[in-house]
């Protein structure tokens, strides 16, 4: 099967029902996308499929045919992704960091679609991503900072 991942065409030979997550991690060696629950409950595995955040642990690779997968390794190719990654570092958001790939992908998608998200928008977009270390208040602040920085940049 031919896949487009982070702008590159990749050939994989796996059963079509294999989730995108395990194809990325075990077959292609792209371990930035994390395994957390396997049931679309925690968001650690979030990637973008044609720009929309999806839970790669329950999305079969067949669903990605003729579509573009964007993972944490390439979110910086979007302006929103750069702003999010910068804010994450600036505000020292992560603790253990394990969930943060998924958080950053979800936050990037949010910010790209909604350049000035309210607290409610953030709650809605980010509540599928669990962080057991409890970095939520910093994630919220970092998204707002990234939004402000983007607005500043576009003036």
């Amino acid at each position, binding site marked *: 099967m031919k896949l487009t991942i982070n702008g590159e065409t990749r050939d994989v030979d*796996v*059963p079509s029902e*294999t*989730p995108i*997550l*395990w194809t990325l*991690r*075990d*077959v292609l*060696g792209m*371990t*930035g*996308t*994390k*395994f*957390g*629950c*396997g*049931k679309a*409950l*925690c968001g*650690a595995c979030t990637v973008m499929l044609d720009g929309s955040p999806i839970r790669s642990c329950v999305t079969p690779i067949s669903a990605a045919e003729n579509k573009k997968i964007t*993972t*944490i*390794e390439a979110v*910086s190719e979007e302006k929103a992704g750069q702003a999010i*990654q910068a804010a*994450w*570092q600036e505000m*020292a958001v*992560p*603790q*253990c*960091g*394990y*969930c*943060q*790939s998924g958080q*950053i992908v979800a936050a990037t998608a949010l910010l790209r679609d909604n350049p000035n998200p309210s*607290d409610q928008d*953030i*709650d*809605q977009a*980010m*509540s*599928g*991503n*669990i*962080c*057991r*270390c*409890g*970095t*939520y*208040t*910093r*994630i*919220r602040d970092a998204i707002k900072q990234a939004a402000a920085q983007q607005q500043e940049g576009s003036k």
Partner: protein
Amino acid sequence: MSQKNNDTPDSTIENVSRRGILKGFALSGFALAVGMPLALLAEDEKPKYGRDGMPNGWVDNPLAFVSISEDGTVTIVAHRSEMGQGVRTSLPMVVADEMEADWQQVKIIQAEGNEKRYGNQNTDGSRSIRHFFMPMRNVGSAARMMLEAAAAATWSVPVSEVEAKQHQVTHKPTGKTLGYGELATKAAEMPVPKDTDLIYKSAEDFNFIGKKDNKLVDGYDIATGQTTYGMDVRLDDMVYAVIAHPPAYGDKVESYDDKEALKVPGVIKVITLPSSPPPAVFNPLGGVVVIANNTWAAIQGREKLKVEWKAGPNRSYNSAKFREVLKTSANQKGGKVIRHKGEAYTDLSNASSTLSADYYIPHLVQAPMEPPAATARIVDGVCEIWTATQNPQAGIDTVAKWLEYKPEQVKVNVTLLGGGFGRKSKPDYLVEAALTSKALGGQAVKVVWTREDDVQHSYFHTVSAEHLEAAFDDAGKTTTWLHRTVAPTIASTFAEGAKNEMVMELGMGVVNIPFDIKNIQIENPAAPAHTRIGWYRSVSNIPHAFAIQSFIAEMAAHQKKDHKEFLLDLIGADREIDPATLNDEWNYGESPEIYPLNTKRMKGVINLVTEKASWGKKMPEGSGQGLAAHYSFVTYVAAVVELEVNGDGEVKVSRIDVAVDCGPQVNPERIRSQVEGACIMGMSLALMSEITFTDGVTDQNNFDGYRVARMDAAPDVIHTHIVTNDDYSQPLGGVGEPPMPPIAPAICNAIFNATGKRIRELPVGYQLES
């Protein structure tokens, strides 16, 4: 400064022993590095406390921890496990500060498990900073002095004329300089100064210690997805394994049929692992292992397995029934008396005013976002493991036992941990990987725990019933405190049949209450364990603080007094209490002289947090503030929670203020992040998390059943107020765990103030629905 992510293990996880030759101040020193710190040489009669009391103690030899390459790169070894607390940043930062290294030229590498070389590596008990702050200062100071000695020797000038600053040594009279890289080789040949000869920087010259804006060592790699956790390890020719574990602790494999499993594309082989007789210790649970060429195939294969389990003794475990057993015990006199002062029972029967209450706290599972995973291979009689572990030495020892190897034949490489919270102190999953590799003739294999494995087969936080009674005199003064705590003990994991809480569990806030009360009776009735009981961030402080701090709020309400004033009054006058006088012989392993229980500091955080949170301010209908304070891991914490309970009985926490007195601070930014995280984890266990058992099997198996706080539950704001202290000669306190215990009682006290409804059983769940 960062781990690089490549496909080969040699570069994926850089370990000291694997990184080849670093020129300069380098490997020649490693033989010396095993050298004995003075504290270990002294075979004294006195009990050993603090860092001296840890197994394998501490090491402060600069040659073990620091190397400098000719390009000036300073490589610092992080020997404690990074699980989100920031230790890979904070301890190397101490070294870099004392040695005047330029942080931009510092690289951090993770030590493999080797306590003889690095000192204790068991990363638990909120003690990395308080036990290794001084050894790491010694390392940095010694390295700086060796660089200065090398420069002085190069220039043939007295060492008093040279000064190391910002990665170079200057000859003060002439102004000439040599960089650390230029000095590296010579510095390595200089004698290592004795600890007694070390010269330390003064606090006003610190570059990083106590500063607010230190950046995370792994911040960039995390933000760009380049970090390597145990789950991410990849070796050549590696296979993947998922294990069908016994559904209840103590069950065994009777028989299995793997025909359908083997038909799953990618599944290679199915084997069994032996289960171990109790006690659980760190032994594997046993089960049926599905080995495949990717994780997904292994998971699918496991689903197709047909396993007949032989029911074990814990199939009778039903936590709803057990709750009643615990409650009954907590309400009966006659348990083990663990503290007795005055005549509590007499006073309770004679007093004109008494109060009693029962509290219940369920089992919990740590559920770090990265489930346990370990990769093992065996080459030429050496088993090498790559994994996320809090306790690599226990991994080495346990794997060696199971493989019948010497400990020297087992290597444990420590990756980043995707959370730990106590779960990853237990190396059972390392043994599973080692045994599976052995069964495959030494082939590299990664054992992956799915979330279902993690939630169902952890070493669970205990379950407990807490019974409290108080008596008051006519003036409203508390004259008696009676507390019965009943909970299966962690000791049962190490000694079959243990039924009473250990000294360290009792020392977690139940026996060592600093209250000025005439009659005190504290009892610990027996409780059997029916599953593996283990550590969970802040451990027994969770139930003890919940019960005690809730009860004090109830007492205040009963006496119609302000909660804060009542609590301060109960603590009483300023005094330093010898923990032994409270029957606390443990004191978190710390010296009672250096770490007495200081009531002034306890009251200090209560006063600070109530002031910052505007305690007592008018709250809207349905809203309330709640207060709680707790001393644990030799740190004093108080919290005020503000929340609203809506018409549907849902709790929305809007603000949490936490005051922390942990002595002098090394990395305040990470202290704040730990406090914020503890608030969220405390909210989870207060409001929604619970593990229950039916016929020995957990009723929850993923984040749908086991609920934890998400973004929509997060408070608008968490304010951390750290008590100022820049006297670095004073003892340091723990940080990772202490902020958590007060959160649940502060929440329930706020719920009471908002609604008049007293929550005595966690989690709050749906109890507020009308």
